[in-house]
């Protein structure tokens, strides 16, 4: 099962290398990783998606907490969260296909950010379901390039 883990770290050089070294030394995998500064410039937040069974994830979280520069680790997988990912996708689009692609852009509230006679480049933001939905529909047209930021996430403040 994939877990969504949010890690607050000291905003110091080398922290990513430390985390990468931990994952490689312990044989953990990472599906995606997004890093950036938070509201406090001394703190960065890393959002990562980590595959593994419960025992592996328990070790991942404990090992992360053990790193001196790691301030806080939260497993968001089973919590109410807002998650988003941004994807840029270049899709083949010639003749009548262009209209169909543009219709999908409207439906998914994506944006066209680059135009070429043979292709369109789209920007789409959303949760995993939306992004996977759009990509599935675009695949038959021919996806030429794809780049993803990796998920970012925040726990919801109101947990009702």
């Amino acid at each position, binding site marked *: 099962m994939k877990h969504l883990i949010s890690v607050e770290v000291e905003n110091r050089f080398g922290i990513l290398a*430390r985390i990468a070294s*931990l994952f490689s030394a312990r044989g953990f995998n990472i599906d995606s990783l997004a890093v950036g500064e938070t509201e406090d410039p001394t703190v960065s937040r890393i959002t990562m998606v980590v595959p593994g069974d419960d025992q592996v994830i328990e*070790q991942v979280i404990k*090992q992360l*907490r053990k790193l*001196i*520069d790691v301030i806080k680790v939260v497993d968001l997988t089973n919590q109410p969260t807002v998650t988003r990912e941004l994807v840029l996708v270049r899709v083949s689009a010639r003749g009548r296909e262009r209209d169909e692609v543009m219709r999908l852009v409207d439906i998914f509230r994506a944006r066209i950010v680059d135009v070429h006679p043979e292709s369109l480049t789209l920007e789409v933001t959303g949760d995993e379901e939306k992004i996977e939905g759009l990509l599935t529909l675009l695949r038959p047209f021919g996806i030429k390039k794809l780049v993803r930021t990796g998920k970012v996430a925040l726990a919801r403040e109101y947990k009702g």
Partner: protein
Amino acid sequence: MKKRTGAEIVVEALIKEGIKVIFGYPGGAVIPIYDVLYDTPQIRHILTRHEQAAAHAADGYARATGKVGVCLATSGPGATNLVTGLATAYMDSVPLVAFTGQVPTSMIGNDSFQEANITGITYSITKHNYLVKDIDELPRILKEAFYIASTGRPGPVLVDLPKDIQNSKTDAVYPKEISIRSYRPHYEGNPKQIKLAANIIDKSESPVIYAGGGIISSGASKELYEFAHHNNIPVTTTLMGLGAFPEDDPLSLKMLGMHGTRYANYAITEADLIIAVGARFDDRVTGDVSEFAPRAKIIHIDIDPTAISKSVRVDIPIVGDAKEILPRINALTKGKKREAWHRKIARWKEKYPLKYNNDGKLKPQFVVEKIYELTKGKAIIATEVGQNQMWAAQFYRYTRPRSFISSGGLGTMGYGFPASIGAQLGRPDEVVFDIAGDGSFQMNIQELATVARYNIPVKVAILNNGYLGMVRQWQELFYNRRYSQVELSGSPDFVSIARSYGVKGIRVEKCEQVEPALKEALSTPGPVVIDFRVEPEENVYPMVPAGAALTEMLDGLA
């Protein structure tokens, strides 16, 4: 306020942390620090003949005293030579602060002369490390380094010091107190878990305490002793835990695991409750994990949450310091007698004692027994790695913490001799032995110069069998006696080589020479090397083959 240089601040930090001895080796990138040390007589610098030995000596000092060990090396090759020492200390949770020189900040990343990315290299073998890029941060970093190394689960911390940082000046002062928001080890233990543990202990008919090096790091031997005796629970220790519980006590089962006693392994396997304290269920202890303690519930007390449920499922985890937690559990337990369990264990002890075939040939076990006898069990024993280490563990009886100094986790050959130097300097009034093999001793043999130069009176007992004995044993038992590259011809005459360093050398070839040789060594005020020409193909027994269950022990005497 007078501004001071980085090098001055480093040395001042050593003084403020109460460091009396450091181990090091100079080089271009640490000359500023050596220049300050030149005027600092209150810090004794021991010049080893290899940086690896400096790291191991600092480690041996730390294990023997419980204080932080300090080593110092230059950039590049000096720093990389520390790597094995840092990994050794990391695996065994030894508090160490290692200082390395680094090329000037402006040259980092340029493949400069004697440049190595030592922080990158040591991420996974240090508890934490620092590359100092701003002189104003240096005092805080130094304070943090000593704090991190010595608190929580102890470990090595490396501080990489670019040469320009050593020379530049600041008025920042060494902080008295330190607080790190992302590092707050907790010691108390959860009260609910402690209560649960006490309940389950009172219900248990056949419990075993499995005690590791954490008892020694925590200084919890007395607490362990009281807990075991109040509840009448037998105690087995890991290699790292030797000395945590007195082996001459009736409750002692001695060591468990691959070369542990049969009775310890049987007790673990039949136990209905395992109380693991400061131990981490290493594969050399558990054997086949799926058959480890099949009937037992497990209570695991450890200061490091990552040690819990890493390889073995735990029923009651308690995160915290053994020294705090054991008395609190003790206060809640009733002190059951458990007579049937003790009768059973007594039968195993009687039936399966540790033994060897003492047939008049010079046996390594006999040498270790004699060392025990003549030092009255009061020596500090450092070991190398391999058969020598296991015989030292089995046939010397450890009754005090910090009396057995050995590379358990990493299994570093060449560790024992430099570690014995550190141990002797930390505990100058005690007899220190390095029980060595002829292979391991040659991995840091150059330190004969160090013991000669400072007249450090360690006694090196080489159990010389002419082989890499443990690998030979595996090849004998599991590879059809195909002895591939384990025969060590070409080794020097250890007596002559000791003498050429100005160290006393004694050769022993027969049983009756053992006692006189050891007496001579013990009455010599300086270092001594004794070359024991032992039986070449003696094996360590009992033995659980790698990956087998603990009860599947081989025994050469059966």
